[in-house]
């Protein structure tokens, strides 16, 4: 069972970047006004950031990293590892993290690779980078998490189009023997592969003549095989079934009291879904911050983005945080830790 305790890992700083361009749900005239109001009320998204052609997820992470290094006053040569969690890399090959190593001016001694995960990816990324650092043989690493999800959705698919926003983030980790432990619980269930999927374009179904044919699945849902599909009921059942027990086992393993947690930062999937999960976990509303109203579902960036936009001033002193990401795969993971007294949270960056 993937219940893990990492020691000597300090989370030093978190930053996030979004594109300036803002799309408003009220302007999504493909659906009726009634539907727009219902969407805003239940799914919770009033507006979201959409990257124009010239901005990618790696650009948003690049700017997040520059800000992070500046705030920490870390020399570029001191970075030993750069991991980029993304499902919208700049290219199929090479991995975007390697391009970023060069663009950021990091040393050629940097370990750099991408991880293909979405909703759960931030917590997985913390675990992978934390594990690399834990031996103490390398000292500093940066975790990037971000997606340009808006390129994958079809305007004529009301189940996906108004849901996603673009964002990138950077998190600095270091080997530090005075750090308090981080506890993880990581899980996967590939039986849910179809629930969130882009069917064509990979090697199973390479781009072919029918890849771009737009087909009406049901009224209001028209898309092609190169677009993202979401099976809402399946995802919702998955979240209701798995998240609460995952968190309960993590808390039992860590010996940390649920009541003592200051903030539960959940992947920003869908307000109604997150609230259902929150109620199931019996957590008071004031402990669960949301960024979804203003930024939509921002994939693996949603947890660090929510920390940057909602908790920046609250994390000046140490707090107990529980982070939980769940979705595409299915893949889900939670972690719990006490934040460092020197944790630096940057102001949100906006890119033109």
């Amino acid at each position, binding site marked *: 069972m993937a219940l893990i305790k990492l020691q000597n890992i300090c989370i030093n700083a978190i930053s996030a970047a979004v594109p300036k361009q803002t799309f408003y749900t009220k302007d999504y005239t493909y659906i009726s006004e009634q539907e727009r109001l*219902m969407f805003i009320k239940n799914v919770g998204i009033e507006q979201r950031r959409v990257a124009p052609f010239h901005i990618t997820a790696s650009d948003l992470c690049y700017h997040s990293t520059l800000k992070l290094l500046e705030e920490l006053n870390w020399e570029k040569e001191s970075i030993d590892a750069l991991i980029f969690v993304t499902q919208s890399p700049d290219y199929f090959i090479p991995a975007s993290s390697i391009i970023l190593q060069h663009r950021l001016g990091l040393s050629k001694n940097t370990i750099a690779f991408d991880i293909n995960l979405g909703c759960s990816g931030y917590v997985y990324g913390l675990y992978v980078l934390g594990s690399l650092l834990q031996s103490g043989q390398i000292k500093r690493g940066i975790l990037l998490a971000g997606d340009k999800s808006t390129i994958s959705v079809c305007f004529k698919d009301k189940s996906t189009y108004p849901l996603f926003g673009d964002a990138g983030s950077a998190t600095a980790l270091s080997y530090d023997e005075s750090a308090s432990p981080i506890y993880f619980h990581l899980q996967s269930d590939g039986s849910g592969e179809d629930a969130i999927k882009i069917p064509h374009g990979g090697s199973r179904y390479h781009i072919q003549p029918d890849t771009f044919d737009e087909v009406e699945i049901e009224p209001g849902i028209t898309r092609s095989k190169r677009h993202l599909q979401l099976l809402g*009921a399946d995802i919702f*059942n998955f979240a209701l*079934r798995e998240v609460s027990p995952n968190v309960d086992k993590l808390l039992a393993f860590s010996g940390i009291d649920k009541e003592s947690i200051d903030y539960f930062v959940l992947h920003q999937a869908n307000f109604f879904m997150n609230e259902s999960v929150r109620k199931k976990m019996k957590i008071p509303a004031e402990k669960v911050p949301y960024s979804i109203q203003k930024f939509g579902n921002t994939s693996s960036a949603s947890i660090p983005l929510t920390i940057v936009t909602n908790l920046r001033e609250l994390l000046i002193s140490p707090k107990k945080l529980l982070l939980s990401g769940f979705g595409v795969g299915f893949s889900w993971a939670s972690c719990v830790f006490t934040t460092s007294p020197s944790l630096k949270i940057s102001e949100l960056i906006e890119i033109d």
Partner: protein
Amino acid sequence: MDIQEFIQRLENEFEDLPKGTLKPDTNYRDIPNWSSMHALIIIAFADAQFNVELTASDLRNANTIQDLYDVIKSKMQS
């Protein structure tokens, strides 16, 4: 829990729905402004109130409120 009590509890989940709108033979997809969001509300209702997982295929196979009641009831017993 009989079907009438079930209907009362279900109607509470839909804020904009006047009480007494739903009947056992109402097709639940005829709820005014029906959308996939309503399906999630019904799934959450089944989970929170009856600890029953209502799958996408359960919903596909059910047409009326009576059908929903029956499938939830049968899953509660199993």
